[in-house]
């Protein structure tokens, strides 16, 4: 086939252009370290890389969030530890103050220490985070959650919203507890029912050892144990307006059973003395601790007063134990959340590695291969240039 002179030029040039293009492309890959420098280099992988990058960034955000949540829950746990100490110390003081060997002055001294513990409890309830927000105020983070009125009653001013932190695409963790849930809404009595002593009682009897013996039979009614005579009592269901047990003989220390509950009366009741049994309700830890201080301050002067004193402190131990239980449960929840976060952080870290590997596989260039390609292409380019010069040298006109 004939070859025109221009073809010789054109072909060599085209070949050199092509090689130069390839060299530049490989050079770009080596310089950027990336196989995909624009979507057109590999559209499918480029779109996939975009998704991976979004996930990676999101995982990093979740990591940051998890760090924040971890720090905040850690702080909550510390504060709850403080609450636990207060309750523990109060319980010790209560046991101490209950001793019959103590005089009124001694009890008042102990009561003063209980009051101090109450102050500590209020301070703990008003704990602030590093950035100054109240951690138990719910979402009303700038509102002081616990304040005391003139009578010393503590009220809760926050709300019941607990902020959640996003620690993975599908998982949110609550970063605290509302003051209502943590310190205010504590069940009183034994958690199911609570006993009371009529203020007008004149006997020396008190009620204690309150247990649920048959939870299936339990009903949430208000009951009254009424002594019609020092040795006879009846049990009235005030909610239903009926008498549950009529004219029972009273034997001190023998449990009185009704509606799945057992309570025991000790001491000598007077005719007309009454004890109430009602479903447990909420009672704040502040009230529980405050009740102890008040009981110790009040003390007793009469045998009937002593019975009331004993009853109040028995009640207080029930309340305190439930408060302790609640704090322990909250700390267990905190621990579980921290575990969750820990697990999630590990999962996030795995996801991050995984996503990075996937992205790298899709996007990153194999440098060794790229450099050897580059060497091959430059060699070919040099050969093409040499060949061009040689061929262009050949002309019949050289010999004319």
């Amino acid at each position, binding site marked *: *086939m*004939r*070859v*025109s*002179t*221009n*073809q010789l030029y*054109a*072909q060599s040039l*085209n070949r050199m252009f092509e090689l130069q293009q390839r060299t530049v492309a490989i050079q770009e890959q080596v310089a950027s370290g990336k196989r995909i*420098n*624009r*979507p*057109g*280099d*590999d*559209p*499918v992988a*480029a*779109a*996939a890389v*975009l*998704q991976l*990058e*979004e996930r990676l960034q*999101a995982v990093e*955000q*979740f990591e*940051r*969030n998890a760090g*924040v949540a971890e720090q905040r829950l850690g702080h909550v746990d510390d504060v709850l530890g403080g609450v636990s100490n207060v309750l523990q110390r109060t319980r010790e003081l209560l046991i101490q103050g209950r001793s019959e060997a103590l005089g009124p002055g001694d009890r008042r001294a102990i009561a003063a220490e209980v009051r101090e513990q109450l102050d500590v409890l209020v301070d703990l309830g008003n704990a602030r985070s590093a*950035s100054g927000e109240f951690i138990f105020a*719910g*979402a*009303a*983070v*700038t*509102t002081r959650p616990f304040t005391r009125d003139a009578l010393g009653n503590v009220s*809760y001013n926050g*709300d*019941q*919203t607990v*902020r*959640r*932190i*996003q620690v993975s*695409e599908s998982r*949110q963790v609550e970063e605290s507890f509302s003051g*209502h849930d943590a310190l205010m*809404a504590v069940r009183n009595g034994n958690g199911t029912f609570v006993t009371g002593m009529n203020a007008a009682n004149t006997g020396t009897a008190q009620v204690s050892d309150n247990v649920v013996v048959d939870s299936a039979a339990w009903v*949430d009614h208000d009951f009254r144990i009424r002594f019609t005579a020092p040795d006879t009592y009846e049990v009235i269901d005030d909610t239903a307006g009926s008498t549950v047990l009529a004219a029972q003989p009273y034997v001190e220390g023998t449990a009185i059973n009704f509606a799945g509950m057992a309570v025991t009366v000790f001491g000598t009741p007077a005719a007309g003395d009454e004890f109430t049994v009602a*479903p*447990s*309700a*909420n009672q*704040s830890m502040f009230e529980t601790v405050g009740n102890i201080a008040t009981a110790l301050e009040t003390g007793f002067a009469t045998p009937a007063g002593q019975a009331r004193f004993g009853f109040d402190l028995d009640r207080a131990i029930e309340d305190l134990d439930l408060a302790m239980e609640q704090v322990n449960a909250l700390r267990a929840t905190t621990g579980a959340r921290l575990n969750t976060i820990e697990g999630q952080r590990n999962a996030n870290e795995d996801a991050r590695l995984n996503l990075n590997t996937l992205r790298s596989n899709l996007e990153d260039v194999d440098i060794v291969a790229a450099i050897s390609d580059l060497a091959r292409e430059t060699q070919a380019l040099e050969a093409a240039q040499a060949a061009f010069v040689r061929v262009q040298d050949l*002309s*019949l*006109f050289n010999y*004319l």
Partner: protein
Amino acid sequence: MGSSTFEIGLSGLLASQQGLATTGHNIANVNTPGFSRQRVTFEARTPQFIGYGFVGKGTDVQSITRLANDFLVAQLRNSMSNEARAVKLEELVGRIDAQLGTGLVTSGMQNFFDSLGDANDDPQLMATRQVLLENARSMVSRFAEQESELNGIARSVNDQVRGTVAGINALTSAIARINIDISRGAGLASGEPPNDLLDRRDQLLTELSELVGVQTQDRGDGMVNVLLGDGQLVVTGGTATTLAATGNPLDASRVEVAYDVGGTLSQITDTLNGGQLGALLEFRDQTLEPTRSAIGRLATSIAITVNEQHRQGMDLDGVLGADLFSVPTPVVNAAATNGGTVSVAFDTANVGNLAASDYRLTHDGANYTLTRLADMSTQTLAGTGPFAVDGLTISVTAPPAAGDAWLIQPTKFVPRTLQLATSDPRALALAAPVKTATAAANIGDATISRASILDATDPNLLATTTLVFNDPPTTYQVNGAGPAIAWSSGGDIDVNGWRVQITGTVRAGDTFTVSSNAGGIGDNGNGLRLSEMQFEPLMEGGAASYQEAYGMLVGAVGSTAQQARISREALSALSENAQAARDALSGVNLDEEAANLLRFQQAYQAAARVISAADEAFKALIDATRS
């Protein structure tokens, strides 16, 4: 005898001279584009019969022909046209490809959602809110920058269309002139081809076909007609019809190509294909405009869906969230001759159905026809509307007349004017609008869930509402009045535009409260919902998240770019082959010409020798007769 030898020698001398001249012509034109090498054909003269036989009378130049093959030329022209189209397309698509590869929009979106995550950790802090607001603003401006880049490409396409049309006009009139030259050429009648004129016309036709796809018709009178893709004549013998670049009557920003007959323009854009112009138009319709619509759609979808969610939240001042973004309404361009008017709005509830396309709406006197320009699918809209189509609501505001036409550009221009609706970080509605509470005096252990918002526009949404349980606690009353409503643990309770669940055991008299969350400045209830939207399938009719929709666009443009490159490589190779085939026949080879030079030089010298031999013979005769 002597005179005939002279004649013969002279004829050889002249023929060789012609040969040398033609070789010189070939050498001189070695670099002339489209030049076909020429060859002189010689012919022995008619011999003279003399008794003993025919006596040769030397040679004549029969003709000078070019070595060209119409088929090869047409093939080359065709492949050059395809290559020119592919090269232009690769260049244009590559610009968008590189644009989208910069991650301008996607990092803007990511930053927005990242700072939303930070704001959710500390919604009460002004600093995090300020950062969120800045990132929202930055996201919006990145969309605007992206659109501005794309608009720059659109303007450059318009300029190139104008330039190409001017180039086409110059070439067609040159072809018409050369047609005349060829037809008037002296040699044509005697069958002698005007080689160089033919080459030049072939070259002009090749240049023309690089600009736009054309076909030629041989008229038989030496002239050719040139037709555009769909058979429009642009060169009729010696007359060229001009094309004009003109603005689209419905969209002045779009340059169209029209056929200009005596000043009357008829638009032929849609019929053009091939060459650079074909590439420009194809790129504009199939890559550029859809990309702009898709970027606009992404901005619109984010803005509207975020607005919708934002309105379900409460800001730092206890006020229900307003729009975070102010979204411009869809652009509607009406034809000047329209009788009726329509208005188009985004259908916020169905914004996930938005398509990345413009629409053409026409009325035929009875019904509307809506054409989605991205895929040219049409639907008939009967009645007076309003019509809900693809996340848009089309309302008729004045009765239409037959022939009315509108161009609807719902999303394309949104990034230009999309703005933040607020600059106050306090106005970010990150909190849930209502909070729930369990009364401290409750005996039962039931808890109330957070409220989810069913209807943020309910006038009583923020009213303090109590749910009080009756005796027996199987029913409850709202605000202690009204009918007793049956309750089951965990069942939905829908009141005043919100929904809660109460789970556990309740006792008679237990009370739950739902009230305005004003003051709940540390709440991130709505912020978390906004955050979750990042991965929710809120686009493509519920099939893709924001980022996935963007990924689809990048994938589509990337594929187009890849295809354009592959096709350009293939067509360049084909065009090289066609060039090689044509050059193998028509191209000048200098070695060959050098050999021809020697050949004709020697023939010339030999012919000269014949003359000198005849001269010597004649001299010998003269000398003989003299003595």
